[in-house]
């Protein structure tokens, strides 16, 4: 049962499933329809009323953040965002009404990154079109342990470092889901992969992130984590 202690989340702003949190948390600032409402502004629905500027500028900070995570360099991120906007502006007349503008421009950014020198280097190391289903069995089902709570409370810096260390195909999908709060369909459109691939890749990305955080946590927590509890969150 949800206990009153869970109200510790009550002052956080975070999006959750449509039905799950509302009964249990009085989550301030949460709009249950956040994901869908967020892309009303940038989808094709109101395109006739919006210019490229009106659609593209609100996404500027998010695109830059995503670009910086991909390139891991400020100058390269600026170049990437600039090139993305130039390409998007040129191709805006061919942008189809009714399709999602945000997914469209993120896809341009990602494709531009993949054809850059750094992107090519990354894809030579880990091919982005690898078949997620062939990466081995799904991670074992995990149970709540004291370790999972520690993982959830990893320091900001540890977490950023661990995300940085993720292979780019895991880093990008995790950011699109958790930071950009894209739906699985939007992620699928952005990455040009089926939804099933989104689900399995996301699951592996989360598991990889937990695995990367575990040694740091063990170091930080000393003996607080029993060795036997190897399963993650």
């Amino acid at each position, binding site marked *: 049962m949800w206990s009153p202690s*869970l109200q510790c989340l009550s002052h956080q702003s975070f999006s959750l499933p449509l039905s799950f949190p509302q*009964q249990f948390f009085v989550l301030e600032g949460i709009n249950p329809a956040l994901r869908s409402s967020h892309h009303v502004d940038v989808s094709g629905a109101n395109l006739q009323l919006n210019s490229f500027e009106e659609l593209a500028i609100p996404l500027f900070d998010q695109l830059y953040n995503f670009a910086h995570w991909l390139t891991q360099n400020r100058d390269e991120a600026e170049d990437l965002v600039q090139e993305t906007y130039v390409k998007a502006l040129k191709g805006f007349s061919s942008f189809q009404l009714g399709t999602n503008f945000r997914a469209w421009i993120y896809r341009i950014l990602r494709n531009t990154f993949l054809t850059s020198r750094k992107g090519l280097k990354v894809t030579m190391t880990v091919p982005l079109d690898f078949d997620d289903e062939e990466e081995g069995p799904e991670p074992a089902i995990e149970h*709540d342990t004291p370790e999972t709570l520690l993982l959830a409370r990893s320091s900001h810096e540890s977490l950023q470092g661990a995300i940085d260390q993720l292979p780019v195909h895991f880093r990008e999908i995790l950011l699109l889901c958790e930071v950009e709060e894209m739906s699985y369909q939007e992620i699928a459109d952005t990455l040009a992969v089926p939804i099933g691939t989104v689900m399995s890749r996301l699951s592996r990305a989360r598991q990889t992130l937990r695995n990367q955080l575990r040694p740091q946590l063990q170091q930080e927590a000393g003996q607080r984590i029993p060795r036997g509890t190897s399963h993650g969150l």
Partner: protein
Amino acid sequence: MVCESWKERLDIYLDGELPHEEMRTFDAHVRNCSSCSADALSRVQFKRAIHLAGKRFTPSAEFRNRMQQRIASKPRRAFRLGWMLAAAAAVVLVAGTLTSTYLGNRSGRDQVFSEIADLHVATLASSSPVDVISTDRHTVKPWFQGKIPFAFNLPELQNSEFSLLGGRMTYLEQTPGAHLIYDARKHHISVFVFQERSLPARLTDSSLKPAKLSFNMETWSQGGLRYFVIGDASAADIDSLVRLFKTAS
């Protein structure tokens, strides 16, 4: 274990991606299963931590301006010659008006910045600078309920060099707002929040050092609110606090 089939889909449930009927079934289960509810809680916390950690990079003001100009200028290239001539004539006619308006705006902006600096100094000089004394944002934020006509988010300061000292109501050009005071290595930094539409002067996002004062100041607009951060701390500290606020908002 009986819950294993549920836990397999817990992340999808928390992502809000299960079909509607399954979502309701899941809700009912999680409500009654202590194991799944505890697991869901820790996963939610992990998601929240990633969400916050992922909002890491912000573009520089210079890059933002450059891009905004570039994007804004493109659609306007398609003017026909006639329109351009008409526009040129109009420019000549209204040049005087625009100049005086610009000067008026600039003077309005300077006045606002000057008032902000005055509010900061006057408050710190007061024997009771804050009306709500608390380092807990969950105490300070609710204190403003019913006192100001808007709501805003306060950043999480854990693992940062800042601590919240408290808050008070303030007024800028007859507009009510929130004044928060933070401490950064013994420097006091004020954060002012007002409704953008209530402020008479049109302000642009910027970092500046008001003339004749040794303060650093940054201002930006977000979600219909105008923020000012001012203090005698270093520009880097001010910038860091600004980033925390931008992330929280």
